């Protein structure tokens, strides 16, 4: 177990590095560029009116403090990190005086829910079908699934979400296409509310699943067609071991490790897909919040969401990587 502790330590070090580099990128993109966000904000605010220069100056000072832009670059850098560490990005400008962190905490569960449900379905379904297709190479229905998956997999999430939206919103309007639940329905532990949440989640989940399943299917099929040439599979077949047993305990079980690693590596992309899909369906998660923040010029909120995204994804990848060795006897015991 000491070995595992060491691994946890090393992997956590990598996590710290990801967060460090990510937050630095966020800082330098926002602070080390010649563009001054305050001037931009004031310009936006005063675009249609004559502003009192003194008021402008006061606003400037207030915004400077609010955004943590006082002092030289180094002082700003320290302030920035303190904000990240306390998860306090100040109040949101567009939803003043609600703190940015509150808005993010409100949006995070929706993103997490959408992403995890869609990922579990597409990862599970894609790997199951892909595994079968890799093992039963001559099965015609599975070949057809393969053709469909090859067509779906390269389509970016946005385009897929858009197609789903058009199909079910305009061509055959049977499902709600926007929001997370019926607007006038009070939130609470009621059946009606859950039903509504379920219905509203269907299309975003569907569009994520279509692309995701295709991708996992293709990856798993390729992986399995390699695994079936492994000596232990050939030997089990020679030994007359039950075919289902071979498929599950020999082929799928060995592919699982690679696919879990794959999941950790593609979390960034999966997260990307989820927030983009939210935008299309007006789903109240981080993605939607991010877009609204940009439209509203809400500086603190944009930075808060970008930082949170980086940390959240890195954390999820960390969790998966820490679980992975427990699945593999070769590293579990070593």
């Amino acid at each position, binding site marked *: 177990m000491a070995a595992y502790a060491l691994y946890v330590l090393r992997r956590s070090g990598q996590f710290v590095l990801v967060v460090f580099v990510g937050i630095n990128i966020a800082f330098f993109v926002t602070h080390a560029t010649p563009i001054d966000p305050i001037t931009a904000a004031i310009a936006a605010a005063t675009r249609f009116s004559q502003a009192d220069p003194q008021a402008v100056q006061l606003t400037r000072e207030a915004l400077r403090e609010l955004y943590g832009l006082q002092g030289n670059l180094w002082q700003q850098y320290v302030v920035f990190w303190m904000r990240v560490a306390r998860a306090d990005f100040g109040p949101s400008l567009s939803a003043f005086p609600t703190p940015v962190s509150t808005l993010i905490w409100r949006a995070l569960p929706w993103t997490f829910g959408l992403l995890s449900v869609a990922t579990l379905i597409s990862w599970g379904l894609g790997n199951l079908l892909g595994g079968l297709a890799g093992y039963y190479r001559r099965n015609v229905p599975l070949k057809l699934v393969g053709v469909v998956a090859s067509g779906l997999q390269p389509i970016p999430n946005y385009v897929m979400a858009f197609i789903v939206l058009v199909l079910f919103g305009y061509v055959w309007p049977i499902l709600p296409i926007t929001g997370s639940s019926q607007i006038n329905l009070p939130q609470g532990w009621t059946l009606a509310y859950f039903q509504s949440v379920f219905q509203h989640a269907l299309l975003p989940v569907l569009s994520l699943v279509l692309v995701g399943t295709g991708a996992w299917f293709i990856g798993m099929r390729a992986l399995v067609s390699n695994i079936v040439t492994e000596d232990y599979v050939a030997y089990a077949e020679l030994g007359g071991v039950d075919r289902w047993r071979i498929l599950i305990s020999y082929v799928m079980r060995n592919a699982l490790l690679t696919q879990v690693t794959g999941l950790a590596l593609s979390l960034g992309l999966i997260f990307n897909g989820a927030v983009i899909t939210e935008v299309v369906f007006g789903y109240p998660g981080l993605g939607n919040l991010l877009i609204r923040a940009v439209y509203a010029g809400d500086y603190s909120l944009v930075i808060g969401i970008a930082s949170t995204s980086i940390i959240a994804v890195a954390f999820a990848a960390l969790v998966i990587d820490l679980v992975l060795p427990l699945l593999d006897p070769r590293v579990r015991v*070593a």
Partner: protein
Amino acid sequence: MSGNLLEVERLTKRFAIGGLFGRGRFNAVDDVSFKVDAGQPQILAIIGESGSGKTTLARMILNTLAPTSGAIRFRGQDLLGVRGRKRRLDFMREVQPILQNPYEAFNPLKRVDRYLYASATRLAGAKSQKARDEAVNDALQKVGLSLTEVKGRFPHELSGGQLQRTAIARALISSPALIVADEPVSMVDASLRMSIVNLFGRLRDELRVSILYITHDLATAYYVSDRVIIIQKGKVVETGPAREVLIHPQHPYSVLLKESVLSPDDVGQGAWEGERPRPPSQTA
């Protein structure tokens, strides 16, 4: 000429091990010392099982892997000093490798003569095309091939034996003093194996090349080599004249190794050959 051609002194290579978890260290080569005399060309067999560190040793002698401690001196010069392109080329003129798998030793996407010509140009200093052809052909003749058999061929168009002999010819182009051969016949078919081993004997006798013959096979080592070094887990356990060591090994490991070698003469009288059994007894 006198002195030592090759001098290996207290050579150690330590590797860190451990994949995902943990870190350990072990000595792949552990305090190994031996010498090869410059005056008398010889075949020195380095015998060990898998994991004995013999390949690591070969890589260090070829100067493609740096030792952790200890020294390797070639003609008195420490290999640590062989830095920079010119010195490296000078070193390669004198020390050449022969690799284990003849099918892997040539890039399958390239013609084999490319390596021969590169050696002729860069190592033997052949300037004109004619000089190059001559150098290459000379070397091929020495191994019983000719340029016409090899020129323009891709590796898959030649047999394992031909490839291995081409590799040896390439190594000979710069007239080296030392050849380091790492398991050179383990991947060569039985009917061709002895031609390679015999060739080593001829290189020593006719071209006066010393050869480090790295192998796990005691029988061919006995057949061709002058001296042997037996290594176990990176350590030298026994060394001496081939005949002496292989006929009368002293160290318990050498004894065990020799006793384990199967002999074709055991036919019909294998150690475990007892009474032929009756049809199977069915008591479970």
